[in-house]
C-alpha cells in the first residue's frame, strides 16, 4: 500500500504503516515493538537518516534475516514517501539529483568520463555518503544509455565495467585518475552492494513487490550438495545441530521428579551437616542412547547428501551409544571405521568413493540385494532398541524393491526411519518406490537444514524421554 492515506497522520502514522508493511513481509512486529520504536525515536535526533534507520532497526528487526527485510522495506517505504512529497511539491526531478550532471537527455561522453572519475575518487576515499549518491547517479546515467537486463546482478556488473572500476591497477590511465592504481577491493564491494540496493529498490518501485517475497537465510535453502564446495556450510550446520541437540537434551533431563536418591552419597554428604541429610544427592540419570544403524545410498544421484548426512551423524556420535554405518549402491559396505579414523569431511568422502567397493557391475542401486546383505550382516544385532536409518531416494532403476525383506529388517529393529533427499513432490514418480517401503517405516523428506534438524530431533527425543 502506498502511504497516500497516511499523509495526514504525519510521522507516527507513517511508522505504524511501516510496521504494517514489515508484518506483511513476515517480520514479527508486535505492538510492544512499535511502542519501543516510538520511544527510541523520541530519544534521538530522528532527522538524521542513518540514526532514524538504526533506531527503528534496533527495535523492530530482531534477527539478521529480519534486518535484511527491514532494509528493503525501509528503502521502499520511505523512498516512496519522498517521491510522493516531491510530486506534491511539483518537482520535476524524480530521483536523487540525477539532473545535476547531465540535465536532460543523453550524457555526453565527457560528462560520463567526469562521472567515472568522480566515482573512482569517492571509492578510493571510501566516503560512504558520496558513494550512495553516486551509485544513484550511475544508475540513472546508465538507464538512459541502455536498457537494463532485468537481472540485477548482470546490471551491477555491467555498470561496474562501464565505469572502468577494477581492483587491479590500470597503468594506461593518467596518474591523476584514481583508477590508475586500482580501486580498493573493499570499497568496490561496498559500491557494488550500493548499486545492487539501488537497483533492487528501483525494481521494487517498478513492480510494487519486494525482489523476493521472503528472503531465505543461507542455511534454509537446501542442504549443501554439489561438488563439496560448501564445506564451511557443512561444518556450520553440524556445529549448530550439535548445539541445539545439546540444549534440547537438557530439556529432557530437566525433569527431576523421577530422579533417584543416591543413599550412599547423601549419607556421606550429611556428615558435613552433623548427620542431617540436608543436601540430597541424586543418581545421575544417564539418558538412554539409541543404537543406530545407518544405511546410505552413495550412488551418484544422492552422494553428496548421503556423505553429508553421515558426517552429521558421526559428528553427533556421542549422542548415540553405538553406531554402525554402511554405504551401498549395489552391495553394502561398512564404513564405520572410516568415520572413526578420519575427521575431515573431504577425506571421508574420498575414502568412501575409493575404498568402499560398493558398485558392482552396473553402478545402479539394487535395493533388494542391499536389504538381504544387510540383514545377513546385522541380523543378530538388531533388537527392539535399535534404530535403522536409511538414506536414499528409493529409486530402484526398475529392479524389484523387495519390500518384504525390508519389512523383516523393520520388524526386528525398534524404529526404522527413511530419509529421502528428494522433495516429497517427486516421490513415487518414475522409478521411485518409496511407497512400498513407507508402510514399514517413517519416511522423512530431508533436503533442507530445518528438515534435517527436525529429523535429528525426532531421532533423539523419544528414546531419551522413555528412559528410566
Amino acid at each position, binding site marked *: 500500500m502506498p502511504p497516500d492515506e497516511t499523509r495526514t497522520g504525519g510521522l507516527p502514522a507513517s511508522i505504524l504503516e511501516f510496521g504494517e508493511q514489515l508484518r506483511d513481509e513476515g517480520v514479527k512486529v508486535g505492538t510492544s515493538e512499535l511502542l519501543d520504536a516510538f520511544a527510541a525515536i523520541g*530519544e*534521538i535526533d530522528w532527522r538524521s537518516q542513518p540514526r532514524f534507520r538504526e533506531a527503528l532497526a534496533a527495535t523492530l528487526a530482531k534477527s539478521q534475516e529480519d534486518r535484511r527485510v527491514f532494509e528493503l522495506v525501509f528503502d521502499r517505504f520511505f523512498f516512496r514517501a519522498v517521491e510522493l512529497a516531491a510530486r506534491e511539491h511539483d518537482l520535476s526531478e524524480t530521483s536523487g539529483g540525477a539532473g545535476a550532471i547531465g540535465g536532460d537527455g543523453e550524457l555526453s561522453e565527457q560528462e560520463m568520463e567526469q562521472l567515472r572519475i568522480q566515482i573512482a575518487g569517492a571509492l578510493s576515499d571510501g566516503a560512504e555518503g558520496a558513494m550512495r549518491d553516486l551509485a544513484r547517479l550511475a544508475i540513472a546515467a546508465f538507464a538512459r544509455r541502455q536498457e537494463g537486463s532485468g537481472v540485477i546482478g548482470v546490471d551491477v556488473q555491467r555498470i561496474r565495467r562501464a565505469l572502468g572500476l577494477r581492483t587491479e591497477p590500470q597503468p594506461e590511465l593518467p596518474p591523476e585518475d584514481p583508477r590508475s592504481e586500482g580501486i580498493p577491493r573493499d570499497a568496490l564491494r561496498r559500491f557494488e552492494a550500493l548499486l545492487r540496493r539501488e537497483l533492487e529498490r528501483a525494481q521494487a518501485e517498478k513492480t510494487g513487490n519486494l525482489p523476493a517475497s521472503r528472503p531465505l537465510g543461507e542455511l534454509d535453502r537446501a542442504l549443501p550438495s554439489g561438488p563439496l564446495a560448501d564445506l564451511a556450510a557443512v561444518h556450520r550446520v553440524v556445529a549448530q545441530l550439535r548445539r541445539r541437540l*545439546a540444549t534440547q537434551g537438557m530439556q529432557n533431563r530437566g525433569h527431576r521428579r523421577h530422579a533417584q536418591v543416591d543413599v550412599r552419597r547423601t549419607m556421606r554428604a550429611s556428615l558435613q551437616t552433623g548427620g542431617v541429610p540436608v543436601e540430597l544427592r541424586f543418581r545421575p540419570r544417564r539418558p538412554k542412547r539409541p543404537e543406530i544403524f545407518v544405511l546410505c545410498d552413495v550412488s551418484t544421484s544422492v552422494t553428496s547428501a548421503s556423505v553429508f548426512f553421515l558426517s552429521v551423524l558421526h559428528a553427533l556420535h556421542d549422542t548415540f551409544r553405538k553406531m554402525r554405518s554402511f554405504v551401498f549402491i549395489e552391495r553394502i559396505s561398512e564404513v564405520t571405521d572410516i568415520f572413526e579414523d578420519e575427521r575431515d569431511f573431504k577425506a571421508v568422502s574420498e575414502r568412501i568413493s575409493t575404498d568402499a567397493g560398493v558398485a558392482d557391475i552396473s553402478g545402479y542401486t539394487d535395493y533388494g540385494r542391499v536389504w538381504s546383505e544387510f540383514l545377513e550382516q546385522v541380523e543378530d544385532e538388531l533388537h527392539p532398541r535399535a534404530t535403522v536409518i536409511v538414506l536414499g531416494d528409493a529409486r530402484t532403476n526398475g529392479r524389484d524393491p523387495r519390500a518384504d525383506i525390508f519389512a523383516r529388517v523393520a520388524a526386528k529393529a525398534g524404529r526404522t526411519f527413511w530419509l529421502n533427499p528428494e522433495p516429497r513432490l517427486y516421490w513415487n514418480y518414475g522409478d521411485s518406490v518409496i511407497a512400498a517401503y513407507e508402510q514399514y517405516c517413517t519416511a522423512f523428506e530431508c533436503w533442507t537444514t530445518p528438515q534435517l534438524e527436525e529429523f535429528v530431533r525426532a531421532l533423539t527425543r523419544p528414546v531419551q524421554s522413555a528412559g528410566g
Partner: protein
Amino acid sequence: MSVGDPQSVEQLAEGLREVGYLPGESTALVAYLATRLGKPVLVEGPAGVGKTELAKALSRMLGRELVRLQCYEGLDEAKALYEWNYRKQLLRIQTEADDAGWQAVQDDIFGEEFLLARPLLRAIASEEPVVLLIDEIDKTDQEFEAMLLEVLSDFQISIPELGRVDARTQPVVLLTSNNSRELTEALKRRCLYLWLDYPEAEHELAIVRLHAPDLSDTVAARLVEIVGMVRELDLKKPPSIAESIDWARALLLLGADEIDGEVFRETMSVIVKHRTDMEVVAERVGLKLGAPADAA
C-alpha cells in the same frame, strides 16, 4: 538515571572511545538507546567481534560495576538468581535455644542474611547502578530464558519465602549470543537488537591502531587488508577482531616491519585456529604474499 549518563549519542561514542572501545555508528546508537530506554540489548554476531568487550567498555565508561553471568548448559536458578545458604540456616537452627517458637525461627532463617545472591539478584539489588552482562545466552535452555523474562522486563525477582525484590536502580543489561540457537520470541521482544559484524577495513584499522599503537602504519594497514582476505575464504573459524589485535601484538613483538610470505607463514597460527583452515589459508593467501611482484 545517574548524572554520569551520556546525554547524546556522540557523547556516548566519545566516552566509549576514551575507555578504549571504538564503537560503530549503530553500536553507539543502540547503547545510547539502552541507557535511555532502560531496555536490555541483545547483541548477536560472530565470535570475537567485541560483544563482551562492549559490556565491559560500557561499565568502565559509566563508572558502574560489571556483573557478569556466564551462561552454560544446565545453568539454573540457584546459580543465576539466588540460593538459600543451607549450612548457615542449619547452624542458626542449632544455636537457637530450644524454646524459640517455630514461627520465630522461620522468620529468622528466611531473611536476607541467609540468601546467597547470584549475579542476577546482585545486579537487581545493588545500591549502585550496574551493567549486567548475560553472556552467551544461547547456551542455556529455553526454561532459563523464560525465567529471565521477569528480570528483564520488570527488573524484579520473586523469592517465594521473601517476597519480591525490586530493582533499586536501573541496570544496563546486555545479552550476547553467538546465534547457535534460535532465541524465543518472548525474549527478543523485550530487547533491543544489535548485530555486530566484522568491522569495515578502516574501522578495524582504527581498532588495531588503538590496541597496538606502536605498530607502524603500513604494517597495520597491511594486516587489516590480509585479515579481510582471510575472512573471505571459506573457513571454519574466520579470524575476529580479537585475533587481528593478537596478531598485531605478535608482529610488534617480533619486530616485523613488513608482512611478507615468510612472516605470514610463521605467524599465521595467531589468526587461523584450525588445521584444515591453515592449509587453505597458507595456500591462498600465503602464495599471494610470497609473490615477489606484490610489494604494495
